[in-house]
């Protein structure tokens, strides 16, 4: 019992048990219902896309760690795998595998590592990869196959949002039913099809407090309000807010992409502004833009404003006079 040998450290001396890898595992658990749903609907195509994306993301991450002389152990913090799963989830099931691989390289390389790696990127890496693919391979990225559970004419097959936007599905009465949208029995990206599976995973994250409820709530509320206003004004020309919430990548984006810690704001008030912005921009693109789907660009667009929103909305410090 002598002096030397005692550790000197500053307080606090205790730490919570939770760590970054544990959080990442929780996100992967939450994604698993949607992964399983996509495998159910698209079978081996889905499996291949997940595997290729994961291999590309991990290899790119490893190459950057090697080049920057960083410990390779960080490869297993789970973040690159999450990026890979999210990237694959926003791809069409029949996308050529080499394109998926390119998407993975761009997502990790350009979306994450050039900014300095985990925690330093401005844009959601998976969406950077997806945006690159949409620009580089526009035809392949908008060619859809129906889920194996749906018997339809594959030649003219499109997503429900494209049906709505380009094929006047509302007028012809050929729009996908809400039930099929909810279960995922529609065309679309791997992860954007089954609203049910996404909601199960999202509920898990909310219960575990791994994501802030304000972001999905804000996104869904603002998209519903925006599309709802048009629907109420002209229900014969516009789809219902529920259709918009359940279709495309809205739930995937609201629950799993907009909530990405690194690229979303820190404070509650800034989270509201960010989430409302995503819903609004998604609605604008869907109703008036050149694309049937706009969630991806809406999130990337709002990612850009995160530092600004945070700076403008500094939270009130205890004892500070309420402003205005």
């Amino acid at each position, binding site marked *: 019992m002598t*002096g030397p040998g005692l550790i000197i450290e500053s307080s606090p*001396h*205790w730490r*919570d048990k939770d760590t970054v890898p544990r959080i990442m595992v929780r996100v992967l658990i939450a994604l698993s219902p949607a992964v399983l749903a996509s495998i159910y609907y698209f079978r081996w195509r889905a499996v291949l896309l997940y595997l290729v994306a994961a291999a590309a993301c991990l290899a790119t991450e490893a190459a950057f760690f090697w080049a920057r002389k960083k410990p390779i152990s960080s490869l297993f913090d789970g973040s690159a795998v999450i990026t890979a799963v999210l990237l694959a989830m926003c791809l069409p099931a029949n996308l050529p595998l080499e394109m998926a691989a390119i998407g993975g390289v761009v997502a990790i390389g350009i979306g994450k590592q050039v900014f300095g790696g985990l925690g330093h990127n401005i844009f959601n890496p998976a969406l950077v990869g997806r945006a690159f693919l949409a620009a580089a391979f526009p035809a392949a990225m908008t060619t859809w196959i129906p889920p194996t559970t749906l018997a339809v004419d594959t030649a003219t097959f499109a997503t429900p949002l494209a049906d709505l936007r380009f094929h006047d599905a509302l007028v012809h009465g050929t729009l996908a039913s809400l039930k099929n949208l909810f279960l995922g029995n529609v065309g679309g990206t791997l992860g954007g099809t089954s609203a049910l599976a996404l909601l199960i995973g999202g509920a898990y994250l909310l219960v575990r407090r791994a994501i802030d409820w304000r972001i999905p709530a804000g996104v869904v509320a603002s998209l519903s309000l925006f599309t709802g206003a048009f629907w109420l004004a002209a229900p014969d020309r516009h789809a219902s807010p529920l259709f918009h919430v359940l279709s495309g990548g809205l739930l995937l984006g609201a629950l799993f992409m907009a909530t990405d810690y690194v690229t979303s704001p820190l404070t509650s008030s800034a989270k509201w502004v960010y989430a409302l912005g995503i819903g609004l921009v998604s609605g604008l693109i869907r109703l008036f833009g050149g694309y049937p789907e706009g969630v991806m660009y809406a999130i990337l667009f709002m990612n850009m404003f995160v530092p600004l929103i945070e700076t403008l909305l500094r939270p009130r410090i*205890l004892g*500070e006079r309420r402003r205005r």
Partner: protein
Amino acid sequence: MKRRTFRRGIHPPERKATAGRPVERLPAPEKAFVPFLQHFGKPAIPLVKAGERVFLGQKIGEAAGTFSSPVHSPVSGKVLALDLHPFPSGTPVLTAAIENDGLDTRAGDPEKPADPFILSSETILQKVREAGVVGMGGASFPTAVKLAPPPGKPVDTIIINGCECEPVQTGDHRLMLESPEEILKGAELIRLAARAGRIVFGLEENKRDALESLRGSVDGRAVELVLLRTKYPQGAEKMLIQALLGREVPRGGLPFDVGVVVQNVATAKAVWEAVSEGRPLTERVLTCGGPGIADPKNLSVRIGTPIRQVIEFCGGLKEGAGLVVYGGPMMGLAQSSLDSPVIKSTTGVLAFPEGRPEAERACIRCARCVDHCPMGLMPTRLARLARFAVFEEAEKWGTMDCIECGCCQYICPSRIPLLSWIRLGKNRIAARKSGKGAA
């Protein structure tokens, strides 16, 4: 019922294993080491020389002005030396080494007022100051200064702090169970000294038995006993005022600014003993515990007792214990020497096993530090600004409002030493303000 509390904060494991163990008296040390600085402010001026005989309770250091406090001998015996000695903060401090003759001889009978409750505010304050009473919850601010509101800032409410929100510690809990009468009488004297209207007594939900004990001793006094939610840092002044009264101490202000004085339960007891018995502060209750201590206990310890002796009385350090802390696991000071003495603000002597250091990861902006900061700050931003030496920005974002409770660093899943960076920012900003440049 939903208990009152403050916003945000954390709930670390409580680990208050010693809550059921009555306070034992630690035998007086053979040699006491009494630092002349045991309070916030200037060190006391020594009144004794090496070789001089001193009585138990004799004043051996005089307060050096208002922001200072006298110190008294915890034993009777002979002053061996005045020299620099290891001190809890890490920097050695001028300390009187006193050899205990084991007789506990007092200088004479202290003055005991017949009815302490009819004394004037000035008399109470004078007795509190003379007895060297300082805040015993850890801050060690001279109590007489804290009880004298500046002109134009009347105090309407006295808050007695029985939260003891630090994990492991149970000394205040035991005091409330064993000496409720003295605490409540002390609280009443504090109320009279500060000319306040009422007393609100706050304690955490995990000390329900203490509430019952206090309730039995209220005896018609105007004391409101309030159970608060068990949450850290409930016992921090600003959090406690917010929880009990819904008032917010203004930024950079003091509890005076919202008409409040907060005093810890141990301080209230010390005030009672100082005023009613003329007894100076030379002994205090603390918890010696934590997973690194063989037989954890609550102890009444003479000021100046080396912590080595406190730990030995509790069965010594367990195999693998490598961290010894003054105070609690959240805000305590790690010690490099077991020769450091117990001082007036020592709420606990805790020992923990040597933890494996975990690698720091990059901030993933999970916002937990923001969601748990009781002051409403953005710790990750403050830490980053300090790291990049942008101290003006760091000040703008509220670095000086940080109360150093450690919630941010506790909760951080990336194991970033957030509070260390924020402390660096605070030091640099303070140094710049005092015109001395970088300290």
